[in-house]
């Protein structure tokens, strides 16, 4: 039996990190599409969700190759910014709220990008083994 054949149903830790980061971006995007008060209500959960993704990255980073580690470290930086802007958005109102929501979304997008780059690096390394 060829043990190198990957079962797509089996998700590893990095796949789970990516899924969590994607869900975070989706949650922020859904909240951002709402009106001010409804958006703010949805934003209450964003800092905690962000922290959960950060913890997930920290728990899995040690098992990754060097390229993936670099991308995940950058993802953590973007997630810190995501959390900071999400915290700010809860305090802000009006235009300042919209600005911090937009920044939160952009930071989360950048974080997902870095996690996905880590996934690509891992897959590419497996392909070229």
């Amino acid at each position, binding site marked *: 039996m060829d043990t190198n054949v990957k079962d797509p149903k089996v998700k590893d830790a990095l796949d789970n990190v990516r899924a969590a980061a994607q869900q975070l971006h989706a949650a922020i*995007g859904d909240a951002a*599409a709402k009106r001010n008060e409804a958006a703010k209500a949805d934003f209450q959960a964003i800092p905690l969700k962000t922290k959960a993704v950060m913890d997930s990255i920290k728990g899995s980073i040690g098992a990754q190759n060097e390229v993936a580690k670099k991308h995940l470290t950058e993802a953590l930086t973007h997630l810190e910014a995501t959390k900071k802007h999400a915290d700010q958005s809860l305090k802000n109102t009006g235009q300042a709220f919209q600005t911090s929501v*937009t920044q939160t979304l952009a930071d989360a*997008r950048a974080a997902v990008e870095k996690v*996905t*780059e880590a996934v690509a690096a891992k897959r*590419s390394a497996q392909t070229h083994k």
Partner: protein
Amino acid sequence: MRNYVAVVFNGTSKAYEALHAIWQLDSEGEITVHGTGVVHRNDLGDFQVDTKETHPGLATAVGVGLGALLGLFAGPAGAAVGAAGGAAIGAATGGAVGVVADLGRASTRDQAGVEAAFVLARGQSAVIADVSEDRTSYIDNRMSDLGGVVYRRAKSDLEDDAWFDDDYFPSRYLYPYEYIPSAYSGWD
């Protein structure tokens, strides 16, 4: 290799089938998808980008970023024209409503230039994807099966292009997961 791919279809539903197929390839580990988006063009020439965002400023940025990207697929001069056209590409919530690109007000010559710069003809839809792929055949074969025409540009081409600065870099406006608006069927 990191590439931008546009797959053009004659019809909306095929574009969403393609979107799903691209994410399926990711799930199978054949490619890694960094982001996807779907752009439609109706028979009047109006563009629509599927997006959840309703922010006017963000909608404009989405239009400029993806418009310039669409232009780039058509050739080196396309990005500038695409960005100009893209500034008028709206972003409509849920895909239910088309937003006028306002190309109809352009002079005939300007409009011809815009038409030539886009790979997306009237009545067509395109899936745009930012992917890492070791082999291009996975996407090419799957999209060919669905009847799509594949255009591909290296991400490094965009990084050298003045249109794609931090504000309008298209990756930012592509969804990092499979997003299909619930009301898309209204476009067929």
